[in-house]
């Protein structure tokens, strides 16, 4: 089975996964193995994209790293501490912005501070700063349903930034947006990432998104998700999606993914 050797990693690593596995509804007839044997180290300030076919468990890995769901096997460490519960240091950003519709934008952004009991003036100031970083200080007093989908997602990023996270976990955050907004959001995210110094783990099934954003691309197999390959991308940012380097990378990632997409497809047809 799994090796139980002491984890060999530096306490400075942002995220360390050792033999992580997850089976949903374990021990029931509906048991569903989502992840198996994930070993992954993420450095501070690194931008890592998790790429794989739909349903391969990449989102599940984010929930485990966030501490929102318990893992079945293995362990996750972050900056030398074992991950067992959620923490504002590891903020998860969802596909839908998950803002509280009954709060204004600034109250949403400072929600975490209000949990800690900060004064209204401090919260407002912190919210203003976080919203400035995502370019939305002017909508502080609006409600989420008055904003566009892209703006809501930026507010969600500001809410995470207000907690000064060391790791940003992003679960297909731009999947619900149109193509033009998505491109804008990608360059926005790069600015935020460079500015904040946080590590980013970004889940997507879009190859182009991975090429535009990643320091390293982690390619997953079809279910149960395992790491098939880790592909570094060294070209400088901002990247031209049509230059030969990007084309070559697109070809390589497409080849890596295609067999997995076929496998996922075959499994879905068999159901």
């Amino acid at each position, binding site marked *: 089975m799994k090796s139980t050797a002491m984890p060999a990693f530096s306490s400075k690593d942002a995220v360390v996964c050792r033999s992580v596995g997850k089976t949903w509804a374990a021990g029931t007839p509906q048991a569903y193995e989502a992840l198996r044997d994930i070993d992954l180290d993420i450095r501070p300030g690194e931008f890592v994209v998790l790429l794989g076919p739909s349903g391969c468990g990449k989102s599940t890995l984010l929930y485990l790293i966030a501490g929102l769901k318990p893992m079945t096997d293995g362990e996750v460490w972050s900056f030398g501490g074992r991950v067992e519960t959620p923490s504002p240091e590891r903020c998860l950003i969802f596909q839908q912005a*998950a803002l*509280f519709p009954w709060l204004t934008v600034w109250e949403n952004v400072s*929600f*975490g501070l*209000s*949990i800690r009991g900060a004064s209204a003036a401090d919260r407002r100031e912190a919210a203003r700063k976080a919203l400035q970083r995502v370019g939305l200080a002017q909508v502080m007093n609006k409600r989420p349903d008055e904003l566009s989908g892209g703006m809501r997602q930026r507010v969600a990023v500001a*809410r995470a930034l207000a907690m000064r996270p060391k790791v940003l976990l992003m679960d297909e955050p731009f999947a619900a947006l149109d193509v033009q907004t998505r491109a804008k959001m990608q360059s926005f995210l790069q600015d935020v990432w460079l500015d904040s110094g946080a590590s980013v783990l970004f889940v997507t099934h879009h190859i182009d998104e991975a090429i535009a954003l990643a320091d390293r691309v982690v390619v997953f197999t079809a279910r149960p998700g395992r790491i098939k390959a880790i592909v570094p991308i060294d070209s400088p940012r901002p990247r031209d999606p049509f230059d030969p380097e990007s084309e070559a990378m697109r070809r390589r990632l497409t080849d890596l993914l295609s067999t997995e997409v076929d496998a996922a497809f075959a499994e879905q047809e068999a159901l």
Partner: protein
Amino acid sequence: MSEHALRLPTSSNFAREIARAAKLVAAGLARLGWSLFSIGFFAGLWELAWAFGWTNPHLLPPPHIFLGHILEQAKYFSPALRWSVGVAPDEQPSPLMAVLSTVAATSARVLAGLVLATILSIALGIGIRRYRFVDRLTLPTVLFLAPVSPIAWLPVSIFLFGIGNPPAIFMVFIALFFTMTLATIAQIDGVDESLIDVGRTMGATRGQIYRRIIIPAIAPGLLVVIRMNMFAAWMVVLLAEATGVGSGLGQVIMLARNTFNPSLVFFTITLIGLLGFASDWALRQVQRRLIYWAPQQSGGAP
């Protein structure tokens, strides 16, 4: 502070506000017009059926007949006339007062039962989801009693409370309480899990998650539940009044049945319809103020 300065009304803003208000008034009038037309249309069909002689006017008197006898019918609303042998006719309340006091008595029972059921069912529903102990202790009993018809509770309410207001209020309460508890649980289970995950990530305690996330998240759904159950409350209160109480619209319906007075039945039904309509309107005003963040929805009613 600068964002407050931006909001000062300028003259063009003012004109826009006026235009918006005018549009709202026009829309309100149009909705009212359609409401009157809807009721008038079906009343008109009834009148037509009467005019062509398709219906028996003694059994199904059309609106112009049963509304034409309002004053004559209104005297039946006076409890004194029906209940007290020695009361002289001039000691009776005026017909209008008799109708108003009957309507007020029934409305108060509906309101009391609805408020009680709302507060206790929401409290129990939240308690069941919040504390496993409450869940295990009460949920099986709630499920066990939920399908019991109000008819079956009628004798129980009389055993427990005799006659008067308490059994009628108890009937309204018990008819709503179990289903509203289950509806509260369903609302809690329907809360978007990512909202709760946000709270957990921010370090919120379970109590904070309930107070700051779950309760506001279920508030819009709960108000819809309350509105739907208010109609049920109007149905049940008549049943309770028909047997257990000395006053109220249910008593009038029973009197009309026993004295074979279709006009009185239809007049009372008209009153109940108006009351249901008015109380639904009132609840929607509450909804609009309380759920300030939700997009305005009419829920099918004008």
